[in-house]
């Protein structure tokens, strides 16, 4: 799985980490039953604090995307994989946003608003 962190961003590092894992689940690079990298290894590679990684993993657990088990680390849950029709709908949505020259941040804001 690919994780990208931009320290210059205003979004907290743990939020960026969690978002990156969600995106990897979304594109199918992480599948139910897959193990996330150990927090120690990920923290060392990205040069961030191990507690930042653990906090991101805990957020993903609270969302039901991963199970945290002692000794086994973080494992992607069965519920994590989004239904294929949703993935298709998102692809259409992003294509529509591109056509309309809507910035990614604006699209995300629109989606968040829809949830409220």
């Amino acid at each position: 799985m690919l994780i990208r962190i931009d320290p210059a961003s205003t979004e907290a590092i743990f939020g960026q980490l969690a978002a990156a894992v969600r995106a990897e689940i979304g594109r199918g690079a992480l599948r139910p039953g897959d193990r996330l990298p150990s927090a120690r290894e990920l923290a060392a590679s990205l040069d961030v604090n191990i507690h930042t990684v653990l906090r991101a993993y805990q957020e993903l657990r609270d969302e039901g995307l991963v199970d945290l088990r002692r000794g086994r680390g973080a494992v992607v849950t069965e519920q994590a994989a989004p239904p294929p029709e949703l993935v298709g709908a998102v692809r259409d949505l992003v294509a529509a946003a591109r056509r309309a020259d809507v910035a990614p941040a604006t699209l995300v804001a629109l989606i968040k608003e829809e949830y409220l």
Partner: protein
Amino acid sequence: MSRLRIPVPVVGLAVPAVISLAAVTTAFVVAPARDIAVHWGPDGTADGWAPAWTVVVGMAVLGVIDALAFGLPLFATRREGPSAFQKLIAAIAVAFGVLMAALGLWVLLSQLDAAAEPPTIGVGLPLSVVIALVSGVLAWFATPRPMPVDPKGVAAEPLALAPGERAVWIGRTRLAWPGLVAVVVAIVASLGAAVAANVTTEGRVGALFLVPVVLLAVLVLTSFWVVRVDDDGLDVHSPLGWPRFRMPAAEVASAGTVEVSAVGEFGGWGIRSGKGRRLGIVMRSGHALEAQNRDGRALVVTVDDAGTAAALLSAVAARATAERG
């Protein structure tokens, strides 16, 4: 390709068929109308007798079995060339056909003189085996080279990284079932052989039990891998931390993906050495990450989503080169 190569079905089917047919025809013509020696005891002297025509029929039946048993896999051809397995089957078909023809003809031709003593098997058997082995080796080299699906590989487009952006790609890979079956069979076979040897020698060769133990240790240490690409470069290690293979970002000349054939290119599974200074962590055939070192060596790892890993490795290598100036 510098010399003539003969297609696998021709070598594996037509050659044994022609040899068998020629041998059976010769045997039919020379077979005397009486009983001859057809079985030999452990000391090499004849102890079984049968009419000569049974040898001719036996040769014909075995020739047909040879063609049928080994023929089928040869027709599942791929456009790019035969698999190593198909080459092996063709070589075995030729060796088996030659062995049967040589043995049958030797049995008949050495007993044409009715007054002479039947020969001992001491010459005919080893001679036939040697001729068969040589034929098999020739058949192997007569067939085209086993070809990987995509021997060249595809260089990855570097991932666009913003200045200061940090990125890591971590993937896992583990031994797929063909390799797993091969190792488990080897462990069970060596364990069985050790038990059998120790029973028959009243336990005097206990050291043989080291073989399955060592194989099991190799299985545990080399069947699971974590593949990591970050600012430091490529790092492939067992979850236990050892063994570990690295290629620092500044030493990466290029990164890409390649389709590998485990048996065809690396001769099996595990930590393998391939042609042209390529080290392979080969857990299955198929999609793999290939990193070229500036010194000419390459590291190949079969792992899912290798394209993303290669793109990031290309990016961090470019960054490391830029930093060095």
